[in-house]
């Protein structure tokens, strides 16, 4: 067994030990024991992933672990990338969870048990090398995450609702993936990935297309791609913050992994329309996600929608990569895929950071509503600083991790002009427009989140009473912030890893990988984030020094300028809602906000107003238009079918008998 195998075994072992600890250790030290062991599992995973990225591979067949087929494991550089990202994030977030779990936020025994399982499943999904193994880990991950989402169900009703949404969506997605992969395995004559890879080129385009669409939908729902994103803005806010961080920074990545693995590797590229479909879904997700985020008032909901946006950008990149590949441009396709994968990595870094700092805020104040926060910078200095780092990344501004990956994505789209064909010339401008729109709105969104959530003065008692989180949490957040800053400043460190990961699923293999590495190096030489960031920091220091030299005197403290009318109260500040109001008005037709005005008159006369209440909400329009009718239809069918089940055993036996007869007749007719 090589390093990767030992690392994965170590990760599984640590996770198992963590589960045991969750059951055996008393509640007082449970969080610490589970956290430390899960961190160890994450570290093992990171080591294994890094080994795979350095060029090693691993494959194994463990016949005894799963009934019937046994377990097939296989790790290449692409798996390695996802395993490494998952490992690092799990290790840090599990450490964060130790702090989050203290002081009454502690998860129960079931949730403590589910956390290591969730972590290990996410590490092992990319390592699966057969359909049954993959589905096993996938479902394990889904069930464990569902348990984790539900861990605060006793505290709030909304948790149960979110859990229901998540359960239904994730299981529907699972069914789609199951159908597609089972069909694919059956048609290509074997269920290991190697057999599918060998057999897939012989399959009919219709079958391959159907499999791709089904998996795109299934994996897309896991990644929060519009219109299958409805669970995300519900489950992420309601889950405990370490869990939201893991879900949003790692689990959604695995949807991307699935699409790359199935679409590019197992099915071998496929036709143009597949990737145009992916690009369209990605573009819509990117714009819709960030638009909803820009008007969201709940901090974690905002972050969840931002995940939809970023996964949309990744899918857009994947689509473009597939498009270039079908146009026989393997190197360009490789660069674009590398850009998409880089965005996966950077998104994981800043989103884990953002969710962890949102968790720190939630822990300190108990409030997620940006309108009721504010003024946290003095009470929560570390949280504010790291949130700022994350926000810089999510806004894709220089110094932020998201900037480099979006820059690379734009570069690859710009180079797409080399690809002839009318389809490309129509698709690429639209793709760039989507990236451009989402980039602009992301800046406004994260200025809103940071500015109204953390700066100025507190707008509620809870925000005023906030205290900084314990060291376990702050250390974890600082680590994540350092990681995303390193990604933002020297992304070139990932160059060879990315090109290897791309090479693993490209038709040219090592040749493409080398070409991609060279092109990345050339591209990297035209824009150095290090120069940009260092220059800006040096410039700021220089200006500050000059200012200090020119104006030596001390600052005089004065009250805020209040137009002479007395100190402005905290209620006069701009809130998140008021900040986003112009944007909401501009995108009125897309967002369709709802407002409610209730006027209560005094008893004596209806012309004298006693109170006016005004409420404005921006519901998710897709959810409104798409899900509500479907759910209503399902309800109606359920209601209508109730008449069939009247409680009489005779009738049920009759149903069983008649369906058996129908089945037999049908069989007889077919055979």
């Amino acid at each position, binding site marked *: 067994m090589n390093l990767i195998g030992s690392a994965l075994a170590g990760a599984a072992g640590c996770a198992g030990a963590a589960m045991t600890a969750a059951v055996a250790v008393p509640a007082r030290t449970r969080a610490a024991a589970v956290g430390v062991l899960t961190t160890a599992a994450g570290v093992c995973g990171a080591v294994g992933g890094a080994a795979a990225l350095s060029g090693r591979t691993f494959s194994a067949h463990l016949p005894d672990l799963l009934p019937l087929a046994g377990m097939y494991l296989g790790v290449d550089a692409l798996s390695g990338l996802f395993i490494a990202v998952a490992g690092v994030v799990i290790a840090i977030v599990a450490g964060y969870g130790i702090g989050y779990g203290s002081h009454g936020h502690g998860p129960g025994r079931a949730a403590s048990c589910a956390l290591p399982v969730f972590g290990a499943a996410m590490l092992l999904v990319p390592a699966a090398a057969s359909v049954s193994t993959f589905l096993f880990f996938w479902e394990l991950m889904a069930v464990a995450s569902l348990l984790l989402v539900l861990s605060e169900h006793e505290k709030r009703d909304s948790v149960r609702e979110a859990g229901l949404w998540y359960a239904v969506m994730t299981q529907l997605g699972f069914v789609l993936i199951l159908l597609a992969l089972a069909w694919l395995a059956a048609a290509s004559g074997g269920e290991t990935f190697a057999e599918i890879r060998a057999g897939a080129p012989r399959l009919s385009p219709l079958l391959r297309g159907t499999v791709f669409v089904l998996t795109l939908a299934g994996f897309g729902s896991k990644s929060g791609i519009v219109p299958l994103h409805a669970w995300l803005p519900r489950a992420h806010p309601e889950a405990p913050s370490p869990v939201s961080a893991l879900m949003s920074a790692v689990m959604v990545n695995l949807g991307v992994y699935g699409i790359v693995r199935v679409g590019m590797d197992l099915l071998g590229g496929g036709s143009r329309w597949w990737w145009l479909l992916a690009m369209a879904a990605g573009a819509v997700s990117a714009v819709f996600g960030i638009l909803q985020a820009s008007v969201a008032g709940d901090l974690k909901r905002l972050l969840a929608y931002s995940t939809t946006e970023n996964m949309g950008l990744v899918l857009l990149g994947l689509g473009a990569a597939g498009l270039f590949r079908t146009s026989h441009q393997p190197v360009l396709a490789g660069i674009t895929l590398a850009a998409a994968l880089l965005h996966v990595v950077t998104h994981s870094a800043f989103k884990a950071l953002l969710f962890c700092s949102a968790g720190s805020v939630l822990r300190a104040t108990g409030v997620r509503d940006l309108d009721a926060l504010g003024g946290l910078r003095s009470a929560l200095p570390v949280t504010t600083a790291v949130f700022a780092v994350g926000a810089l990344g999510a806004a894709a501004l220089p110094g932020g991790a998201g900037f480099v990956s979006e820059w690379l994505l734009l570069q690859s789209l710009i180079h797409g002009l080399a690809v002839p064909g009318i389809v490309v010339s129509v698709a690429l401008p639209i793709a760039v427009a989507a990236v451009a729109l989402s980039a602009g709105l992301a800046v406004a969104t994260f200025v809103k989140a940071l500015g109204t959530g953390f700066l100025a003065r507190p707008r509620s008692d809870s925000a005023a009473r906030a205290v900084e989180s314990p060291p376990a949490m702050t250390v974890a957040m600082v680590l994540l912030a350092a990681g995303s800053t390193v990604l933002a400043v020297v992304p070139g460190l990932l160059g060879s890893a990315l090109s290897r990961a791309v090479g693993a699923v490209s038709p040219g293999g090592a040749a493409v990988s080398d070409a991609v590495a060279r092109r990345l190096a050339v591209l990297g030489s035209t824009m150095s984030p290090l120069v940009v960031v260092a220059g800006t920091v040096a410039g700021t220091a220089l200006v500050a020094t000059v200012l200090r030299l020119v104006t030596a005197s001390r600052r*005089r403290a004065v009250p805020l300028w209040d137009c002479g009318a007395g100190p402005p109260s905290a209620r006069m500040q701009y809130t998140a809602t008021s900040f986003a109001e112009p944007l909401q008005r501009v995108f009125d037709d897309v967002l369709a906000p709802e407002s409610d005005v209730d006027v209560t008159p005094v008893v004596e006369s209806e012309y004298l107003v006693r109170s006016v209440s005004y409420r404005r909400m921006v519901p998710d329009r897709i959810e409104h238009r798409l899900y509500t009718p479907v759910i209503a239809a399902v309800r109606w069918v359920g209601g209508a079918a109730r008449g069939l089940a009247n409680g009489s055993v005779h009738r049920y036996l009759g149903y069983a008998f008649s369906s058996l007869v129908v089945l037999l007749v049908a069989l007889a007719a077919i055979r």
Partner: protein
Amino acid sequence: MRALLSKILRVGRVAEPAPPLPGGVPLRRELTGSVQVRCVDAGSCNGCEIEIGQAFGPVYDADRYGARLVASPRHADVLAVTGPVTRNMATALRRTLNATPEPRLVVAVGDCAIDCGEFAGGPGVQGPVDSVVPVDIAVPGCPPAPEAIVAALRRVTGR
């Protein structure tokens, strides 16, 4: 647009030639060349405001001497206070002065600002401006002519 352009060409310059610089040393060396003015109406009848508006209009063009009206006392060097200080405005006037960064000057514009003028002894009147905040320059007149206001500002800018 063509109408406006032909008017611009036809009218040419309307600013009157600059009168000679009033004598005396500049009041504050730091403020030479540039002075930003924030108007505070402490209870005026708005006569002085109209004249201040004229002073900054094209004909008297106080802008050419480096004076400019601004929207916040934070940006201001000079508070141009008009009217007798009413009870309601006394605190606001003090706060406005406190909000202005040093070095700063107070110009009392008009007779009312200097000695309450017509409104002296009125029930809502607290007193002249210098009973509330220290006054550096007084511009008498009811209302003062724009030339007088411009001359007072030129004593500050020294241009």
